[in-house]
């Protein structure tokens, strides 16, 4: 297993004590990780899509010998990044039997559209959006991948080439009047091949006192999303921040530069393949070693 995989899994497997704190990592892992860091700079796009290798193949082969799953309602798909438990990875020697645990993917973000009926106020909002899009000469199916209603909030997954015009419709149509853009935020799902990077836009309508989220996805190797700054000037800094942390390039942004990290910082820290800590920090010629390479007092 490559080191990247290990890091991703450490980040993913929630119950895994190894990933809980970096301090409790096995010394071998730490040494390996340090080596990899020296070889590859964080700027390089590490593609988690390549992750499933012999380990997955072995797990699949093992599964063939297992009894079939009991009959019942259709199960959600296996979680793309989580199999096994208690550190029962490749070569761990774990014989507890818990390593066969399969985590099912229940994340609505990866699911299909939420079928109607929705809660009343969201039904009305959905109808208003359809009407507004018709007014603009388009339809739901043209501009949206899917529509999610979850925990009382509605999220429109907008096709990325349509984002700018959808934002304009959402702001200007009298039925919608989403005057304010409250923010843009990135989320990185490395296991979603072809749509690893998500950007979520929160809109607020003071006129109608309601909110929507617009979510756009883009692949890791083509991280371009149209900018909405020309519709919502307030998105300016939020898009810069999302670029800074995730490397999403907002096409049409007036000055897409880093905002939180230093201008010459390599890499995009909020990506899942970017480690926590362990980045040498240079300041006025001095170099601060990553935590696992600093001198210890024991």
């Amino acid at each position, binding site marked *: 297993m490559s080191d990247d995989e290990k890091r991703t899994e450490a*980040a*993913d*497997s*929630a*119950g895994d*004590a190894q*990933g*809980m*704190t*970096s301090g409790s990592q096995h010394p071998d892992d730490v040494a390996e990780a340090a080596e990899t860091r020296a070889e590859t700079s964080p700027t390089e796009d590490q593609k988690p899509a390549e992750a499933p290798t012999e380990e997955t193949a072995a797990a699949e082969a093992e599964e063939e010998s297992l009894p079939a799953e009991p009959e019942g309602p259709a199960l959600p798909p296996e*979680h793309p990044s989580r199999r096994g438990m208690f550190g029962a990875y490749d070569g761990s020697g774990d014989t507890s039997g818990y390593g066969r645990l399969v*985590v099912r*993917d*229940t*994340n*609505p*973000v990866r699911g299909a559209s939420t079928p109607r009926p929705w809660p009343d106020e969201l039904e009305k909002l959905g109808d208003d959006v359809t009407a507004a899009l018709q007014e603009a000469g388009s339809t739901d199916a043209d501009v949206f991948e899917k529509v999610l209603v*979850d*925990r*009382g*909030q509605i*999220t429109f997954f907008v096709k990325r080439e349509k984002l700018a015009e959808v934002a304009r419709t959402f702001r200007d149509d009298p039925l919608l009047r989403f*005057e*304010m*853009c*409250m*923010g843009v*935020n*990135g*989320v*990185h*799902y490395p296991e979603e091949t072809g749509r690893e990077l998500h950007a*979520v836009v*929160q809109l*607020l309508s*003071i006129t109608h*006192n309601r*909110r929507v*989220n617009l979510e756009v996805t883009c692949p890791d190797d083509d991280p371009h999303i149209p900018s909405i700054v020309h519709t*919502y*000037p*307030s*998105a*300016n*800094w*939020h898009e810069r*921040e999302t670029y800074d942390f995730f490397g999403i390039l907002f096409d049409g942004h007036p000055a897409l530069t*880093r*905002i*939180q*990290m*230093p201008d010459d910082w390599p890499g995009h*820290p*909020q990506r899942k393949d970017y480690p*926590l800590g362990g980045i040498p920090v240079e300041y006025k010629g001095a170099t601060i070693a990553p935590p696992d390479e600093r001198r210890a007092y024991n």
Partner: protein
Amino acid sequence: MSQQDVTFTPAGDDTDDPYAGVRETTEGPVYTVTGQDWDDVIGAAAAGEERIVVNMGPQHPSTHGVLRLILELDGENVTEARCGIGYLHTGIEKNMEYRTWTQGVTFVTRMDYLSPFFNEAAYVLGVEKLLGITDDIPERANVIRVMMMELNRISSHLVCIATGGMEMGALTMMTNGFRERERTLDLFELITGLRMNSAYIRPGGVAQDLPPGAVESVREYLRWMWDHIGSYEAFANENPVFKGRTVDVGYLDLAGCMALGITGPVLRSTGLPWDLRKSQPYCGYETYDFEVPTRDTADSYGRFRIRIDEMKESLKIVEQCLDRLEPGPVMVGDKKIAWPAQLAIGSDGMGNSLDHIRHIMGESMEALIHHFKLVTEGFRVPAGEVYMPIESPRGELGAHVVSDGGTRPWRVHFRDPSFNNLQAVPAMCEGSMVADVIVSVASLDPVMGGCDR
């Protein structure tokens, strides 16, 4: 700029001072001003370029922390203003992805350090929404949350008024403001154990119940505050110097606020009574009786008056909270989420209560396992994402909480009002005098801890 492009010629006699002097760059000469050398600089500047670009900050005492203002000056007039931020970026959002959901509270409370309870509340309400337990939070916990948030709103506004006054030369407002704030922080210390960064509001409720004597202390505090809050108004409302510095300064109208996503007192100073406690209530705010103060001047003076009025409304809400406090649990009943132990003061400081330790160590193996699993591993939160906005003292504070079904957050992002509102600095300051920049920025009340996170 590479090193070769820069020639370094120290000015005047200070040949041995590497920090003072003038550097020739492709952009023109760059002067480093260290004091006592203004004549050299101004003479050189007058001889050459008429356009001066001044870096105000990031270590300037009047910029509310490490905010860097890049001002292009024509004489005393600001022709262009830009903000440089990021000097206080600490990677809190990244760190949270490596800790449990409960530990996340400890991180978010350190973001906007003047309003820790709002950070906690936004995050916790988001987590509770993901868990689907919003309606199961005990009434007493909700009342305590509202009370702490409103006390916090008072302390935050006091700092805004105090530091804003100090920057204009009204030093009494600073000394009085910090005296009153200290009283508020004393209450926080009494109730949560810490003056700041208390990590008190937890998923499912609050960390611990009010200690004995807390209600009386809050009542006494209310009396004290009602006595003292008038002094700010008496001092500033009709003070000609204060009004001269603030009236019509930092003007931003409703259209500007909408375009730039500005919320909070700045938005309300345009006359729009937009307050999430009224329009999209949470924590039971719809049941409290309070007003949303507005002004229609859209300037720094109006924002100052709004903050004073909001403090009075907060005092009213705290009073209603005290009247509503009924005995009861302060943590959700679901044992798979609630923190397993109640804290208590022992001979060696605060820790798990002796009853609880007796239970897990002597009576029930299952309780011990449960305690261990919940404290080390934490609870799982069903996958999904929510955006939870609340009304912080500075405007809309939104927590975008994403779970992938694990015991740790997949991503937590804070839409901090300071971050967003600082975008208004060019609109407010360009065309004004340098001294007005200070007042305008103070009326935005940015807190860089929240801005940079």
